[in-house]
């Protein structure tokens, strides 16, 4: 009996057990059902999303930086190019201890404190997985020494990179400019112009000069290599590649040899020279002295050198040719005379008597020549640079007539030359003065102020490029071109040349006979006047005008070079064109604190013209020419 009950219990137990087993099976099926739903969700519903994620995981777009375009002079002489050099590069997150690695490296190759500083700077602004340069331009010996020890330095490698080189160094510093590392401001600028994509992988961008203004042409198009990468970012295999397109070649209108001669002709003086082909506005020489070594900037200048450059009294960082504004001094006189003829205020033969001064109200304006020039007509006023003639002329013309006429020659306006940083200068007028000053009593134009305007002093302030453009326009009989430095751009891929068309800005309404009067007088300057000493024996007929711009007013005291500190000496100026009958070159020279234009500026112009017209290369340091000067320019 009891056995029967036990058996029954056993059956019941098995029943209950199997019930629980059935529940377990349901449990397992539920779990697997959840998995199935999850798989369908991930692999069907959200497949596209994860597919995209997997693709972006897998494919890395590696930019290939294009070679920067070359800059050549008008004859094909290289003024900026690239060369390949070895750099020592560190991938910080692959090294075992960054500091220790660098210390150890310095036992193999020279690592200067400057290199370290630069590396720290790079480290601070680095992007992920980026290799950073610690040393550049390794010598072959250093490369070999490191290569033998490379196994000891994980994360350190030698790479070949392209470097920018400027063969003319400081002689073309303000013309060519330089490239430098892309900084935050550049990045913002690039993003604004939607160019950021094309600069992926690029380290450098043009910072000044033509490198800056023609950045778009020079940079080229960045290539793209699609590579499969693993999670560490290491490339596994290449999928596709679009080659980079090298930057275009700039062919300048500048003549490198002329540039060099002009630069050297300044000797130790500071200043600027711009030579232009008057028939089309092509700039033949573009000098701002002193220059600086542009290679200092390419890989990041150190603070000490930067301070030295910036605090130097010579201000080598200022591009005097386009940025400096100077009173034109007597170089203003030919335009004054032309204005007088055009406006009918003077006839060429009309004379004034110069007693050596001009009195206006209770103020006396002195002429530099003691005792005066006597009876002076227009020709003599230019050749001998008679101040009194122009005091009376300015007074007769009035400020508005002067400024309206001078505006046509481009004075006080940017020329639009293809380089950045151009100053406007100051062409004084009643309107200008109203805008310039806030106090009402200062806003009024006084008739007495007009008088010194006539000899290129007073508020007059023009950039050397404006002076050059004006003299080129005069040489070209009033047809004005926009000065430009680039002659044509050669497409690297197609070899196609895009000519920069000479841009004729305007034709100033002038009578040819008036122009001829002025030109004759300017020829006279170089023949028998203030420029005669500098141009003695020249194998061509040139036209010129000297100028001296007061830096420091001596309040009526006699100016004497020997008694004035060099930095307070007058600026010397000279404008010229040649050959006088069919000008091929027009130029403006400014010599800071050079004293008389005849003494320092004109000889520089002579050397430039001699080379350009006759191919004559000056002897080294022939700065003995035209030391004299009659105290008047």
């Amino acid at each position, binding site marked *: 009996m009891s056995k029967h009950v036990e058996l029954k219990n056993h059956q019941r*137990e098995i029943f*209950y*057990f*199997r019930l*629980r*087993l059935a529940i*377990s*099976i349901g*449990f*397992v*099926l539920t*779990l*697997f059902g*959840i*998995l*199935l739903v*999850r*798989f*369908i969700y*991930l*692999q*069907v519903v*959200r*497949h596209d*999303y*994860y*597919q995209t*994620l*997997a*693709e972006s*995981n*897998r494919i890395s777009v590696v930019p290939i930086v294009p070679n920067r375009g070359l800059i050549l002079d008008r004859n094909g002489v290289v003024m900026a190019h690239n060369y390949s050099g070895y750099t020592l590069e560190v991938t910080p997150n692959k090294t075992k201890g960054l500091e220790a690695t660098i210390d150890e490296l310095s036992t193999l190759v020279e690592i200067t404190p400057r290199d370290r500083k630069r590396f720290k700077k790079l480290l601070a602004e680095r992007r992920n997985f980026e290799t950073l340069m610690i040393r550049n331009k390794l010598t072959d010996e250093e490369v070999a020494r490191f290569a033998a020890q490379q196994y000891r330095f994980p994360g350190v490698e030698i790479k070949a990179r392209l470097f920018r080189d400027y063969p003319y160094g400081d002689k073309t510093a303000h013309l060519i400019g330089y490239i430098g590392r892309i900084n935050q401001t550049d990045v913002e600028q690039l993003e604004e112009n939607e160019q950021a994509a094309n600069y992926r992988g690029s380290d450098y961008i043009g910072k000044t000069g033509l490198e800056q203004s023609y950045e778009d042409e020079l940079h080229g198009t960045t290539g793209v290599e699609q590579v*499969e*990468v*693993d*999670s*560490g970012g290491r490339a*596994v295999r290449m999928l596709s590649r679009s080659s980079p397109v090298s930057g275009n070649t700039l062919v300048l209108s500048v003549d490198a040899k002329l540039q060099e001669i002009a630069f050297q002709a300044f000797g130790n003086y500071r200043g600027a020279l711009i030579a232009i082909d008057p028939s089309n506005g092509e700039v033949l020489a573009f000098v701002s002295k002193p220059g600086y070594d542009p290679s200092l900037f390419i890989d990041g200048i150190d603070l000490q050198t930067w301070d030295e450059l910036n605090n130097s009294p010579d201000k080598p960082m200022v591009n005097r040719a386009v940025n400096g504004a100077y009173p034109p001094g007597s170089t203003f006189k030919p335009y004054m005379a032309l204005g007088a003829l055009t406006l009918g205020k003077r006839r060429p033969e009309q004379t004034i008597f110069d007693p050596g001064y001009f009195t206006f109200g209770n103020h006396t304006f002195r002429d530099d020549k003691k005792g005066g020039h006597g009876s002076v007509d227009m020709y003599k006023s230019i050749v001998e640079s008679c101040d009194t003639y122009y005091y009376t002329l300015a007074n007769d013309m009035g400020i508005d007539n002067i400024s309206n006429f001078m505006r046509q020659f481009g004075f006080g306006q940017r020329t639009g030359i293809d380089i950045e940083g151009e100053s406007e200068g100051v062409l004084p007028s009643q309107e200008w003065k109203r805008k310039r000053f806030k106090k009402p009593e200062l806003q009024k134009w006084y008739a007495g102020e007009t008088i010194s305007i006539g000899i290129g002093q007073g508020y007059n302030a023009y950039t050397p490029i404006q002076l050059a453009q004006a003299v080129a326009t005069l040489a070209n009989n009033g047809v004005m071109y926009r000065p430009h430095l680039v002659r044509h751009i050669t497409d690297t891929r197609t070899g196609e040349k895009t000519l920069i068309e000479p841009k004729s800005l305007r034709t100033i309404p002038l009578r040819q006979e008036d122009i001829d009067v002025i030109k004759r007088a300017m020829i006279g300057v170089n023949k028998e006047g203030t420029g005669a000493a500098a141009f003695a024996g020249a194998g061509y007929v040139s036209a010129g005008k000297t100028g001296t711009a007061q830096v420091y007013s001596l309040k009526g005291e006699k100016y004497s070079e020997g008694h004035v500190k060099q930095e307070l000496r007058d600026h010397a100026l000279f404008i010229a064109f040649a050959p006088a009958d069919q000008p091929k070159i027009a130029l403006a020279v400014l010599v800071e604190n050079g004293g008389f234009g005849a003494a320092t500026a004109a000889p520089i112009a002579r050397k430039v013209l001699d080379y350009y017209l006759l191919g004559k290369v000056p002897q080294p340091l022939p700065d003995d020419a035209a030391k004299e000067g009659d105290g008047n320019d």
Partner: protein
Amino acid sequence: MTKRQLWQRFIEHLDVPLLIGIGLLMLVSLLVLHSADNAGWGRPMSQVLNIVVAFTCMWLIANLPLHYLMRTAVPIYVLGMVLLIGVALFGEISHGARRWLNLGVATIQPSELMKIGVPLMMAWYFEKNEATLTMKNYVVAALLLLVPVALIARQPDLGTAILISASGFYVLFLAGLSWKVIGGMFVTALASAPVLWSMLHDYQRHRILMLLDPSQDALGKGYHTIQGMIAVGSGGILGKGYLEGTQTHLDFLPERTTDFIFAVYSEEFGLLGNLILLAIFLFVIGRGFIITANASTYFTRLMAGSITLTFATYAFVNMGMVSGILPVVGVPLPLVSYGGTSMLTLLLGFGMLMSIETHKKLVKS
């Protein structure tokens, strides 16, 4: 003895349907390991070695009559407990956890032993008290479970602790633990969650939090989950094809031969492959349930049921963790993930299932 007789003797205690299921999973394992090894043979070859060793042990266990099997319960459990205490006192710390015991000749992980030892001990205990089961017996059985689990959880090895808890719970459940108690445990578990939470290590909390939003720490703690989900999701319906998984071959998948092997499989074989894999698992589990249902004694029923359910749990937890519905707890995909210990533990379980199936007639007769 003829050749044929020898062969018959050899396979006498092996269960053919289970063998087929296990064999299929092992085949999948070798295939996927080859892929996960970037088309190399190193991992698959050592896995073959693991399989051979584990298979031998399975064969031995399968041939072991049930009363011998029962006798091993107490010694294995006691040994396991001693080793666990030993680990707690003298264990070696590796990867921030104290799980291994260096016995001089070998470094062992006693928690692995307890995956078998705990359910074995509990089933043995229930069998001993079969006739007079009271609430007290369930409490004792629960203690037999909780003490080693607590030791393992402290190592810390959350994954193993949870899985052993599960296998022990299955024994309790199948042994007829009343629904009221189960309900009570469920409520208690919920109530004690905050307490348990406070006991967890930071990284464990992180892993659990990652479940809610893996993207908040995409390169840190959430990396595994995200890369796993990308692999699975990008596999699509048909998969990227064998050896074509980009996540796998481009080194994005971490632990791809062990815990994340399913991601490799799923990326290359897609939803279709997953369905096949789930089917194979369900086939093995189904066979386990049949053996359980047919088991002749209380001990073998509990043991077979627990082994089968634990196996199913392993599979679910691993695939759930790779596909991002469970936190990453470090559970291998049974029979597929690379690893000698887990292979051995699993095949010991299957050996017991086979023994239960093939020796039941002997018991009955």
